[in-house]
């Protein structure tokens, strides 16, 4: 009887509920994504689009004019990501661990204050740090002088050797609030019974964190890592705001996002080329896809999900 009913009646409300989201998502996200992949197989000859197969990719990887830029951007991007993984996420976890202590006072204040840089735009962050680190203004050298380390000062953003690391750390400064908040939420969701049971067994403080809380929040740390990966590999705004589209000095802060922007839109003497832009976008897509697959099949599937 119930089976007959479901067969007889098509449940239109399911379609109504799904349609708006699926339509917008398909039209503005999925379709352009595949269209971009498709465009990477074309080029423009005499103002008309011509199919050239994988020729653009051959140019990108084979022509030294392009390939040196590409590998430079990719390498810089990996360094950018590494700094985030090694600095941002540990600090985020540590702050969350301290904040989640039940008897801590002013926890709300700290949490809100530390999250403030995250809400600021890249433009504000980029320029603010540019001014602070600037040798003209002298705040950074002044502060270092105050602690007797003036000799350590260098115009970091202007030196090829330091600029990328400096910008990575600025980005870490900005986004530390995100891992902090997510881990904080994960820590709060650990049931008290588990911690009480541990306490009865004499496991408290640091030991409780390492042996009980950390394993329980590992899935959250995994999610944060992959979010960081994806965000870093399509980052653009901070570099553009602080160093411009040329990602100076001498392309030392160039990452895939700025490289794609320059190629696609053109800058100064270089003319914009949507097809090469699509080619770089396709390479970025492949990199992100590989990263996400590694995470899904290599890490997440091995993690146990705890159900409380």
């Amino acid at each position: 009887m119930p089976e007959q009913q479901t067969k007889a009646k098509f449940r239109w409300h399911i379609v109504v509920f799904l349609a708006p989201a699926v339509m917008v998502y398909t039209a503005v996200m999925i379709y352009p994504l595949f269209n971009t992949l498709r465009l990477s197989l074309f080029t423009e000859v005499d103002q008309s689009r011509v199919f050239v197969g994988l020729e653009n990719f051959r140019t990108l990887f084979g022509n030294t004019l392009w390939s040196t830029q590409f590998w430079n951007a990719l390498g810089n991007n990996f360094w950018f990501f590494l700094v985030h993984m090694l600095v941002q996420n540990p600090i985020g976890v540590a702050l969350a661990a301290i904040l989640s202590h039940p008897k801590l006072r002013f926890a709300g204040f700290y949490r809100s204050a530390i999250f403030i840089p995250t809400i600021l735009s890249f433009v504000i962050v980029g320029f603010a740090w540019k001014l602070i680190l600037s040798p003209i203004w002298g705040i950074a050298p002044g502060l270092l002088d105050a602690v007797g380390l003036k000799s350590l000062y260098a115009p970091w953003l202007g030196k090829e050797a330091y600029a990328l690391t400096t910008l990575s750390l600025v980005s870490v400064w900005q986004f530390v609030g995100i891992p902090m908040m997510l881990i904080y939420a994960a820590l709060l969701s650990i049931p008290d019974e588990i911690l009480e049971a541990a306490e009865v067994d004499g496991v408290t403080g640091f030991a409780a964190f390492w042996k009980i809380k950390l394993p329980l929040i590992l899935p959250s740390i995994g999610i944060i890592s992959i979010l960081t990966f994806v965000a870093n590999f399509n980052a653009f705004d901070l570099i553009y705001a602080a160093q411009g589209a040329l990602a100076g000095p001498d392309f030392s802060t160039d990452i895939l996002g700025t490289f794609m922007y320059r190629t696609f839109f053109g800058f100064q003497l270089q003319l914009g080329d949507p097809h090469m832009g699509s080619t770089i976008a396709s390479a970025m897509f492949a990199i992100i896809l590989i990263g996400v697959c590694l995470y899904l099949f290599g890490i997440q599937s091995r993690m146990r999900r705890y159900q409380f």
Partner: protein
Amino acid sequence: MNVARQNRLNSLAAHGALILYTVIALFPVFVIVINSFKTRKAIFREPLALPDAESFSLIGYETVLKQGDFFLYFQNSMIVTVGSLFFILLFGAMAAFALAEYRFKGNTLMGLYLALGIMIPIRIGTVAILEMMVQTGLVNTLWALILVYTAQGLPLAVFILSEFMRQVSDDLKNAGRIDGLSEYRIFFRLVLPLVRPAMATVAVFNMIPIWNDLWFPLILAPSEEVKTLTLGSQVFIGQFVTDWNAVLSALSLAILPVMALYVVFSRQLIRGITSGAVK
């Protein structure tokens, strides 16, 4: 007694670490804002001093308000952010409800399809998005931005909201069905109010990137009348780069609205997180 002392030491160390990091987090903002109220000379002579009667000056703000159309930029940003959030939450919640509530052919597949976008950034498709917006005449309109941000926000919204909607009790919904409520009413009257904290979390996590995005305004809507605040301040600062008063004032003005938004929504965010934790 030993334990009590240990506890006090621990709590002291905890506060020390947190205060240190809070200072690191707020210091740049503080420096920018105090210096925006100073004369050019004072900015360079004593960058860390608070403005006093002698060094106080509003010259930077005067330049900014004369030269830049910050009210228009602000309004554009507001329209784009609020519009996108509205569509993300409405469409996202509807789709999440369909996936969480009904068993139908292709449910899992549809869930996976919508989840693809969580991991794949929409920026990859920029070239084709721009082409599409040019063809449909949406380029240099706020609709272009709203559409893009809606599409960008939907996958995560659907994912988070459907997790929450699975927790809404079946008894409640079935009671509603027995009372003759339509599926639409069950969704809008019974389920939506119960997932409000999750909606707030989704809104907050989407609000920040939308408000701060530079990429799409730069590419899809760079003309003067549709500039968002982020792009507007970027262009302004680029033009006035040697006028330190103007740059510092522009930065402070750009910080102001986000801080105001933050004061309003931070309570929502924390409520969302804690209610998610307590369940």
